[in-house]
C-alpha cells in the first residue's frame, strides 16, 4: 500500500529529477553552461550534505551515539574505506552503542 502524501512527494521528485536529467538530451546547447553556474552546481552537493547532517544529528535519541557514528564514518571514508564497509560498520557501531547505553 502507498501513503498518499509520500506518493505525491515521490512523483514530484520524479518530475524534478527527470527534467534535470533529460533537458541536455533534448536540447544540446545546454552543455555550455556559464562558468559560475557550473561551479555553483559543483558546490551544491557538499553544501547539501552539510545541511543534511546539522542540526538534525544533534536531536536524535542518545546523542553520543548519534554524533559518534557519523564522525567514525567520515574518518573511515577519508582514510579510504569503501562505502559498503562504512555503512556496515556504522550500523553495527550505532546498534552496539544503543544496546550498551540503553534505549
Amino acid at each position, binding site marked *: 500500500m502507498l501513503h498518499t*502524501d*509520500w506518493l*505525491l512527494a515521490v512523483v514530484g521528485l*520524479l518530475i524534478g529529477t527527470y527534467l*534535470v536529467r*533529460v533537458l*541536455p538530451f533534448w536540447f544540446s546547447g*545546454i552543455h555550455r553552461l556559464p562558468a559560475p553556474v557550473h561551479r555553483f552546481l*559543483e558546490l551544491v552537493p557538499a553544501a547539501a550534505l552539510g545541511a543534511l547532517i546539522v542540526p538534525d544529528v544533534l536531536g536524535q535519541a542518545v546523542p553520543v551515539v548519534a554524533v559518534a557514528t557519523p564522525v567514525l564514518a567520515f574518518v573511515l571514508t577519508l582514510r579510504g574505506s569503501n562505502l559498503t564497509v562504512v*555503512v556496515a560498520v556504522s550500523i553495527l557501531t550505532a546498534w552496539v552503542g544503543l544496546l550498551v547505553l540503553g534505549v
Partner: protein
Amino acid sequence: MHSFTRGLTSALPIASGYIPVAITFGLVVRSFGLTTLDATVASLLVFAGAAQFLAIGMYGAGITAGVVVAGGAVAAGGVAAGDGATAGGLLIGGWPGAAALLLVVQIVVAGWLLNLRHLLMSSVIAHSLGTGHRWILRSTLAFGVTDEVFGVAGWRIAEGGTVKPRFLLGLELGAYSAWVGGTVIGAVSGEILPAALRTAMGLALYALFAALLAGQFRAAARQEDGRVVPLVIAAVAAATINAVLREALGWDAGAAFPLAMIGGALIAMGSEVRDAAH
C-alpha cells in the same frame, strides 16, 4: 563482447556500492512507518539516492512534528500505518491536509535543488552520445544518469572514447536493478528486525551523509586542479545556516534546507572569488 553486455558488467562495481545503501534506504523508510511498496515505488520512480534520503529525512521530521499521518500511528502504539487492516485500499490517508502538502512541496523543491547537479552530468553524456539517436532512446537513457553512472561513463569519455547508447543502457539497467532490488531487500527485512537495530539504521543515515561528504573531499583532492577548501566551506556554511535557521529562528526543516544549501554554495563561491582577487 556486445556493448550492452559490456555496459552491464561495468555496472558491477556500482551495484556493489548501491545494494547496501539501497538496503539502508528501504530500512529507513520502513522505520518511519511507511510500507515496503512506499519504499519500492520511490526507488523505481526517482532513482536518485541522495534525494531519496533527503526526502525520507524530511518526511521523518514531518512525522515527529505531527504533520504527516504515517508516524502518528507509530507513535501511538507501534502499529505501522501500513498494516492495512483498517485502511483497505491502495492509498492510505486520503488527500493530505495543507500542512502535509506544504511538506510535500518542500521535499520536492529541496530534492530538485539537490539534483540540479545532474544537469552537468547529463550534458557531458548527451554531448558524447551525439544527436541522431531516436528521441525515445535519448529520453530513456536520461532517466538513469546518476552520480555513479556518470562516474563510469565520464571516465570512458575522458579516456577518449564516446559512449554508445547500448553500453549506457546496460550500465544504467545494471545500476537501476541493484538500486531497486536493494530497496526491496531492505524494506522487507525491516519488518523482522529488532527495534534497537532499526533505530541504529536510522542513525546510520547520518553516517551515510558524513561518508558521502568525506567522499566529495577525497574526490576533489585527487583531481589535478581539485580544490577541497571550497567544498569544506560550502558544507560548514550550509550546516551553520541550517542550524541557525532551525534552532535559533525556529524555522522548519523544509523551509530552512533549500536556503542553507544555496547559501552554503554561494558563500563557498564568494570565498573563491576573494582568493582569486588576492
